[in-house]
């Protein structure tokens, strides 16, 4: 387990060493979350690197990553713990032949199946706990998280309270398909992860897809930054930029040309309306813009 970063600079450098190019504000929020032992609440468009932060932190601090993917209807049994009912039933049956089994014995650790949240609390070296896309879970689940997020403990009615020896590093992400309750946000440090500017996107691309040449990378970034200026239903995120670059490499493209863009637009845009809007003249205009910017 590696030590926590000692300053914002240290934190930014650490993230960079693991190929995460963070803007200064994000590095600052991460640093503070680590030092103040507060959960980090990241909101932003899909594909801007919110989940990646948790993975990078796990690698950087050399800790295991426990991931809880949220979905509608997620409840305590699948998020925190569950009793092993089948085994309890068997024990009851066995006990009936011999002596009686009291319910105290029935609800003990050996019948408990820990899930992500409980695992995160009980791990000897505190892990990185990623609660991904919290906006997908329904509201009652948020209330359940409150105790965990403020005190890093979990109450199991039959057993008592389980507290973490050392608090895990918690990263919560949300795509903002709905608002998360203030009570959850209050316990966290907040950061909005937006689309990167051209310079940062280029840096990200060069680190994540080193095979792409300087010229091609610049063109890709220029094209995507241009795309984000258009009124599209779903703007491409950094994930799409990286995917597209890989696709272009697979096609052995050296520069962007209309035909290649036409063929690979589906990697960038995920709605037919958006593709129809960009294809043809709009793409040609963007390409021309990129050409002027990179040569001039």
């Amino acid at each position, binding site marked *: 387990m590696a030590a926590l970063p000692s300053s914002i600079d240290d934190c930014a450098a650490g993230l960079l060493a693991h190929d995460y190019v963070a803007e200064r504000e994000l590095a*600052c929020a991460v640093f503070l979350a680590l030092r103040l032992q507060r959960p980090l609440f990241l909101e932003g468009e899909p594909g801007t690197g919110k989940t990646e932060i948790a993975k990078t932190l796990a690698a950087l601090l050399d800790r295991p990553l426990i991931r809880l993917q949220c*979905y509608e209807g997620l409840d305590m049994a699948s998020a925190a713990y569950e009793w092993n009912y089948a085994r309890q039933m068997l024990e*009851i049956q066995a006990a009936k032949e011999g002596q009686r089994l009291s319910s105290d014995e029935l609800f003990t650790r050996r019948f408990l199946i820990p899930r992500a949240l409980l695992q995160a609390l009980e791990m000897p070296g505190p892990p990185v706990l990623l609660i991904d896309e919290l906006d997908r879970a329904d509201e009652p689940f948020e209330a359940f998280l409150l105790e965990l997020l403020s005190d890093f403990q979990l109450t199991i009615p039959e057993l008592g309270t389980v507290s973490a020896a050392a608090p895990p590093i918690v990263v919560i992400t949300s795509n903002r*398909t709905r*608002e998360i309750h203030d009570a959850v946000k209050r316990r966290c440090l907040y950061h*909005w992860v937006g689309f990167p500017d051209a310079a940062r996107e280029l840096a990200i691309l060069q680190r994540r897809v080193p095979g792409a040449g300087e010229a091609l990378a610049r063109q890709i970034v220029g094209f995507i930054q241009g795309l984000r200026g258009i009124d599209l*239903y779903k703007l491409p995120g950094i994930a799409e930029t990286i995917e597209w670059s890989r696709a272009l490499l697979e096609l052995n493209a050296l520069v962007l040309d209309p035909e290649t863009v036409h063929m690979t637009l589906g990697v960038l845009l995920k709605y037919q309306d958006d593709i129809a809007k960009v294809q043809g003249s709009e793409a040609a205009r963007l390409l021309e813009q990129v050409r002027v910017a990179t040569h001039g």
Partner: protein
Amino acid sequence: MADHLATNVVHFSRVLRDAGLRVGTDRIELCLQALQLGGIASRRDFKATLAACLLDRQEHRALFEQAFHIFWRDPDLMGRVMAMLLPRAQAKPGTPPPPENRRLADALFPQAAKLPQPPAEEQARIELDATLTWSQRELLRQRDFETMTVAEWAQAKRLLAQLQTLFPRRPTRRWAPAAQGRVAWRASLRASARGPGLALRRERPRLRVAPLLILADISGSMSRYSRMLLHLAHGLANPQQQRHAPRVASFVFGTRLTPITRLLRQRDPDLAVAAVSRRVADWSGGTRISACLHEFNQHWARRVLPADATVLLITDGLEQGADDDPRCEALAREAARLRLRCRQLIWLNPLLRYEGFEPKAAGIRALLPQVSQHLPAHNLASLEQLAAMLRTP
């Protein structure tokens, strides 16, 4: 940490709080802790630290930026705040101050409002400005939305109870005890442990009314119905019976789209409708259905429209333009997108009150193929008919 920095941070937080951000004492404390860890070296780090601790939603970002800029840097603080309090007519053309500015100015210097009154000439200018932004005509039209009579309200409430049939209950992924269904192991076990023998308990998916989204047209052609429809929206958002109430999000649109979900949370219907009419700037203006639907699809749909929702689109569908007008094409496209995002799209149309109504207007014909149901809604009676019709399968 230097005492005066702490004092200033506390002051800054209070300014943010007065400007409408929810900054509790705990956040201020967190912020002071954070500043002790560093982050005072550069202005950017300092701002990032304050933002991470004091902000909790992106919408407040602009306000925070302005407050930070004014509070922590500007030497001519007083002059700037005074400039903000001057009427807009004096601002440089093309650079209107963002709407938050006034709120922020009030928060920064509450006493500034009580400063010596500007001379009479200034006041005249302010009045002129007000007439330009909030025309007499619009003020008059607001009177359409006065209070409802007791009888009307009672009738509306009865009606709303019947309208529940519009919104069938759907199974959720949570479970509730039931006589039949799958075996509930947890409950069974508890029951079994209590007595001899094996007691099986069962459970079923819990039912929930599908969430509801109301998009109501308040343009000029709809003005006769707007009040009643707003009351309808309010009634749906504040049901008498909480048990099977759907989650409701509401918007009104004319030339612009305005979210009114929060305004309708006010329990008193007249206060709620009054709050809406204060907020909405484009009462009885023109209609730009396709533009408003576009804005909804683009900026709101992902946040307020779950995939299993019922959408109530309340409009007469009178978009300007002929058949081949690009606006009608756009209307069809936006309605189709909306349709794809929800479970059913119900169009309540007051024009259907006319016997032998024919969809002649281009806007109506563009909208019609996209909706799941097209129903009349011109008065309480027609809604009653509607409810009756929905009750009989």
